[in-house]
């Protein structure tokens, strides 16, 4: 269960994917959403912790929160 009360419009499960799979999955998910919508990206690739914030900054989207569980991360990204 998510520890946050953020309500994502979409969850993308990229666990098991190697880099840059999770970031590309996130970009694909953001592409189809309205401004303000939130994507929850599940990734077990540590590279996502740098890839995703870097792209978010470049694209003007916002990383709202990163949750860390025992075996994966959940990154919440809001479309600008």
């Amino acid at each position, binding site marked *: 269960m998510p520890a946050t009360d953020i309500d994502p419009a979409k969850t993308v499960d990229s666990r*098991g*994917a*190697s*880099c*840059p*799979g999770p*970031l*590309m999955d996130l*970009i*694909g998910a*953001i*592409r189809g959403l309205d401004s303000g919508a939130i994507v929850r990206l599940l990734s077990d690739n540590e590279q996502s912790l740098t*890839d995703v914030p*870097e*792209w978010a900054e*470049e*694209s*003007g989207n916002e990383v709202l929160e990163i949750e860390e569980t025992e075996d994966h991360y959940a990154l919440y990204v809001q479309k600008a």
Partner: protein
Amino acid sequence: MTEHVAIVGAGTGGTVLANDLADRLEREIDAGDVQVTLYNDDPDHVYKPVWLYVPFGLREPEDGRRALSELVDDRIDLRIDRITEIDTDAKELRTRDGAEPVQYDHLVLATGSTLDPEIVPGLAEAGHNFYSEDGAEALREDLLAFEEGRVVLSVVGTPHMCPAAPLEFAFMVDDWFRERGMRDDVEVVYTYPIQRVHGNPHIAEWAEPIMHERDIEVQTFTNAEEIDPDAQAIETMEGDSIDYDLLVTIPPHAGVDLISEAGLGDSGWVDVDQHTLEATDADDVYALGDTADTGVPKAGSVAHYQAGVVAQRIASDVRGRPATATYDGKTLCFIETGMDEASFVEFDYENPPSPAPPSTALHWSKLSYNESYWLTARGLL
């Protein structure tokens, strides 16, 4: 009772697998204990790497086509038909042309990649590509007539077939205009969706300095939101606008709907164990090549090596022995670095690529392999 192996798709993976099984299970097939059926909706086998050379006027699309009936062993039941439905619980297939469902004991999905340009508004109308026969021919018309302006090679989506091909095209087009004394009048721009010029960091680290040396403009973190054909501009999700005179894109890819509809994975890629290539959501189902979601490149060499693994595993199963063959992620790619030179990479799940210094010998090795590919398809090389 005859054991039925059904292979869906006769690209590199499906064709190599069928011919491997014809050889490996020769005795059982001849005795009527095993039947291997290969389904493909096109009577031809298509060797896609030829398309890279079509826009430069060096090859023709038909150089990449041969009749499957000439390539596939006579022991294989070749059906020119399309699978329309997979029921992995009942272990049966529905076909476009058959009235009755087809039962299988072992199913191998090798349905490959399709292009999905509609994801990005304007892309289908405005963007050339060399990822289809028609696309490569249309690009040839415009590229051969191009004399000055801005050529933009934009990778719009990943994963895509042959991850080296966008780099190859950029290097080739640079060299091609340079050799013809026109490079001063032509800007070459390369865009990539993430923060480097290639998905694999080792290949990106090797390629980017070459791009700078060759005056190829690089724009990373570039994801097309839409293409405006009238303004000849890519509007990006990052808020940039990139002008072009000739746009060459690597369109987004997807697998076939059949896979998702069967509950085997998203976007047409089958979720598999990356070593055994067995589907994670069904029994007695394998996937290989582009179709298998392993994280390795969607490349012919991958399909070739995976076909050998799947053939060994199915043969073991047919003979009641434990299946021990596994895929280690082995991938080989030649990378053209111009019109007369190429590099080469070999890597697997554990060992990263280390691109070889570009040489004329590697360029000719690539062209030689492309010619001898038909031996691979026949299962001989």
